[in-house]
């Protein structure tokens, strides 16, 4: 789950943060596998184009993302997985893969986990803001070899957020005068019944 979450959003986030200034924020279409090459780096991969310079640039971005413990990494990870930070108090980027690894270690490879990615991606495809209209199916994923044999996870964007980011400008009204607000974190409040 971590892998598709980060890898499908990383290109957009990297571009947003100026890591690759001359490249547009983009993502791969999981239903056009022949146009895309996806080299795996451990549990992660990046969606990259077939042109050699694209390959080099994205690969470089990924290597920076994983190999260096520079300060912006935490911020980038926080924004790519902000939904978890909102839902799980005390969550940090490095705890996320640790918990995932512990879960797999305790319960062995759990093939049912793929159900989350499939369901979430399918729900996002129903949203008007998402330009990925085709719902995934487990049979289609298997047919297109979109799974990780090691963990039985399907390599699809769980919530298609990178596509949402790409289509964000187009869906913003032209006369929209207010500045866009990016929520990068929030606190978990306990309801006490006192207003």
């Amino acid at each position, binding site marked *: 789950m971590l892998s598709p979450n980060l890898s499908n959003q990383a290109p957009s986030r990297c571009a947003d943060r100026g890591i690759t200034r001359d490249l547009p924020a983009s993502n791969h279409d999981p239903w056009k596998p022949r146009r895309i090459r996806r080299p795996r780096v451990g549990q992660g991969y990046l969606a990259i184009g077939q042109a050699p310079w694209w390959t080099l640039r994205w690969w470089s971005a990924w290597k920076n993302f994983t190999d260096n413990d520079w300060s912006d990494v935490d911020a980038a990870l926080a924004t790519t997985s902000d939904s978890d930070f909102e839902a799980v108090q005390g969550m940090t980027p490095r705890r996320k893969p640790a918990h995932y690894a512990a879960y797999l270690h305790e319960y062995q490879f759990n*093939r049912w986990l793929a159900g989350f990615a499939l369901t979430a991606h399918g729900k996002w495809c129903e949203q008007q803001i998402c330009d990925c209209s085709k719902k995934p199916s487990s049979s289609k994923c298997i047919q297109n070899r979109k799974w990780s044999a090691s963990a039985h996870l399907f390599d699809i964007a769980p919530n298609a957020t990178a596509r949402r980011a790409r289509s964000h400008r187009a869906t913003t009204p032209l006369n929209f005068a207010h500045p866009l607000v990016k929520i990068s974190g929030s606190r978990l409040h306990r309801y006490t019944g006192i207003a």
Partner: protein
Amino acid sequence: MKQAGITLDQINFLNITYVSIYAALQLEAIGFASKAKAGKLAADKALN
């Protein structure tokens, strides 16, 4: 749920985050699924 004084049967709506292992952990911790079986809820299309 103990603090709120409710039981599992009284919950008719639950909003979880799908994008990580925490979806499975939350479902199992709350009691909607047994250990290691949370993903099966999604695979069986029990989650919407």
